[in-house]
């Protein structure tokens, strides 16, 4: 295989399975030209009937054939019942060799492994969290998987890199004409943001719901103009796995300390003033920072502009108190947030394109002051890994990580410096997911490292009482505690590609030796 070194020093094959790969050139260095892809022309006629008797009927009507690409969204997270249900039906129908293009897979999707073994699924283009990732890491998939960020996935759909033949769209409520939302019905999950591009660009779209409501089903997240067929099933998922009743702030003193440092850093950075905006998620540290920032803003009377989420009740609370003017919502994590999303017009649904697409005329991440993000590893060049563990196992999806890192004025990695004796701050990350040039600060319990590229920030933080130190020093401290773990035992075979948000390739993931 012929390789070229990319801008973060990783070797990228020139070509893999007939796909020509452009190596990563820098966060904003690669500009693709041309026009976007377009879906086929549809006809809308009076009296059209979209409601199908069964999932099988809908799949037959959509014309699904061997070797095609099918897609799913992950708003139902680990409570999703749709991916397994659809793959089981497809397997019964004898269709094989499909490319599975979910926005993300979760542990609940471990039956996918059987469908890889029986030949129904041949390729995966999407995030893999847990068992499917582990199976792929050991070489279980016959082809090379592709992982993309939220912004990268929608970009790939829109520019034709990822062509979807049939999109399967779970909706908690639908009408017979195909107007969909996620805020009514028995399996509510909030916005339908991940599925919007799928619906718009797929050749055929099949809506799957367990709650059929009379026409018109309002509010409309995905309108009937993008939906070919509607199928009603008993259940699209297990509500307890979709939303947690209550998201919780971390109780770990280490994580709380990291959150405290992060909030103080943001305050001292000068960004925390009227009009402040940030992105949060459902992780324990992230929730704690949201809470701490909210407390500072409330105390000092700072009026924020928006929170971009990953919305939780903590963000909703700041919104309802008027501490932030609005919420942009790509997904929600708890029932309080679903209620807010449904009932408040300033709690706004954000498609992934609007959120993070580099091939757009302006995306939300570029408007954000601060984004705080997690990682499995960070290296002394500030490169970040969110996909693999230090043993090489591909266990996590990308999320919006590289998108937020590239867009936000201040991108912070908030992580413990080691986990279970494994150092998180290292000389070199196992896999590069986000390039160091897009990461401004790494906040750990043992100290805060500012990227040397941000000399303005280094200058500004001089005299701060925070434990600011070079990242190499942080790495040495951690190695004094944990030592240096042996490098992972990997085979030559590439099992997955990490695609950067602009469509270039930032790293590859290799098969792990058993």
């Amino acid at each position, binding site marked *: 295989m012929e390789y070229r070194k990319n801008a973060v020093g990783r070797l990228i094959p020139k070509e893999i399975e007939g796909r020509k790969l452009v190596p990563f050139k820098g966060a904003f260095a690669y500009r693709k030209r041309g026009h976007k892809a377009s879906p086929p022309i549809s006809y809308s006629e009076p009296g059209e009937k979209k409601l199908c008797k069964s999932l099988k009927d809908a799949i037959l009507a959509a014309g699904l054939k061997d070797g095609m690409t099918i897609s799913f969204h992950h708003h139902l997270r680990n409570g999703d019942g749709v991916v397994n249900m659809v793959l089981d039906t497809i397997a019964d129908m004898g269709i094989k060799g499909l490319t599975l293009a979910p926005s993300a897979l979760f542990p609940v999707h471990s039956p996918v492994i059987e469908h890889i073994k029986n030949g129904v699924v041949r390729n995966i283009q999407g995030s893999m969290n847990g068992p499917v990732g582990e199976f792929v890491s050991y070489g279980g998939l016959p082809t090379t998987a592709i992982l993309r960020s939220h912004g990268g996935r929608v970009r790939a759909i829109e520019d034709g890199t990822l062509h979807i033949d049939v999109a399967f769209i779970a909706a908690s409520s639908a009408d017979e004409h195909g107007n969909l939302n996620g805020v009514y019905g028995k399996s509510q999950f909030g916005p339908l943001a991940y599925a919007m591009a799928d619906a718009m660009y797929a050749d055929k779209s099949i809506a799957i719901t367990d709650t059929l409501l009379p026409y018109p089903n309002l509010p409309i997240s995905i309108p009937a103009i993008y939906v070919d067929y509607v199928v009603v099933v008993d259940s699209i998922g297990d509500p307890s796995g979709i939303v947690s009743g209550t998201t919780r702030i971390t109780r770990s*003193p*280490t994580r*709380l*300390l990291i959150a405290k440092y992060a909030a103080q850093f943001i305050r001292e950075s000068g960004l925390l003033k009227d009009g402040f905006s940030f992105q949060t998620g459902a992780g324990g540290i992230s929730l704690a920072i949201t809470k701490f920032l909210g407390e500072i803003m409330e105390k000092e009377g700072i009026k924020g502009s928006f929170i971009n989420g990953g919305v939780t009740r903590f963000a909703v609370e700041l919104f309802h108190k008027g501490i932030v003017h609005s919420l942009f919502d790509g997904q929600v994590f708890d029932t309080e947030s679903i209620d807010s999303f449904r009932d408040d017009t300033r709690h706004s649904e954000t498609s992934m394109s609007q959120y993070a697409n580099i091939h757009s005329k302006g995306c939300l991440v570029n408007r954000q002051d601060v984004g705080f993000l997690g990682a499995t590893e960070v290296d002394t060049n500030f490169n970040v890994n969110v996909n693999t563990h230090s043993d090489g196992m591909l266990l996590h999806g990308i999320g919006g990580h590289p998108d937020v890192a590239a867009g936000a004025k201040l991108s912070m990695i908030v992580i413990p410096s080691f986990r279970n004796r494994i150092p998180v701050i290292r000389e070199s990350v196992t896999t590069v997911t986000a390039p160091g040039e897009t990461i401004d600060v790494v906040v750990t*319990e*043992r100290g805060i490292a500012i990227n040397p590229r941000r000399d303005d920030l280094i200058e500004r933080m001089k005299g701060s009482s925070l434990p600011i130190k070079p990242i190499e020093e942080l790495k040495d401290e951690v190695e004094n*505690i944990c030592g240096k773990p042996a490098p992972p035992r990997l085979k030559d075979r590439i099992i997955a590609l990490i695609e950067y948000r602009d469509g270039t390739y930032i790293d590859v993931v290799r098969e792990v030796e058993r």
Partner: protein
Amino acid sequence: MRSDKNRLRRSRLYIPGNKPSLMYNAWLYKADCLILDLEDAVAPSEKDAARILVKYAIKNLDWGNSELIVRVNPLYTDFGREDIRVIAPMAPNVILIPKCESARDVSAVEELVTDYARRQGVYEEIYLMPLIETAKGVLNAYEIASASPNICAITFGAEDFTKDMGISRTREGKETFIARSIVAMAAKAARVQALDTVFSDINDIEGLVESAKEAKLLGFDGKGLIHPSQIEPVHKVFTPTEEEIEYAGKVVAAYEAAKSEGKGVVALGSKMIDKPVVDRAIHTIECAKQLGLIKEEEE
């Protein structure tokens, strides 16, 4: 880091001696004191392991600016003597003496600590902190507090005290009010620090703050804690406020001025200042200095 007998001890965070994972990060939370516990937090079957872990942790881990205290087992148990034999040569800053009931209990521990430390050629200062947690101990509090010049503080333990009394513990702590008052008084009489009992509900920060405020009112200099999230609220209570520091500064200045003019009476404005007020002001300034709240030139 060696300690100082009169250093600040606003917070003492307990860490079970058999939990190394909690030790690595303990210094990061900036408690004034950290207690590696070999006694109540450790089950009898784990005592050996904890003792060895603590021995190496003292020498090898980073403890930041926190004072390091080890709570050994009482000498009347099977473990107390062995704890001291192993731990004393490691020279922790302080040995915490549990279930202390008399001056004799203090001197028994002190003799062993000195003996085992010297045998290994260790001559570093190791302070003693008797923990008074029985009715008898409370009644002997002054005797205990003045039993040795190496005592830096005496502390009160409400959990065992209420057990000993056959009464139950409440959030408000009325049932220990007199005992705590006696312990605080005994400490002040013996010119050592008085440290209040542990607040054990980690979810009740409000209750913790009230309890710390009451402790301060009774004359205690700090509280015992079981979770790092309790440190900051307690520090806030025991840290002198800006107004207190400013007032103390004026008192000390007036005192210095009176002294240099050879006056016996210290006056601030139209008010006469008594010696105890001056002492307290000096203590406040000392606290503020330790915390870096006043710079040298502002003295």
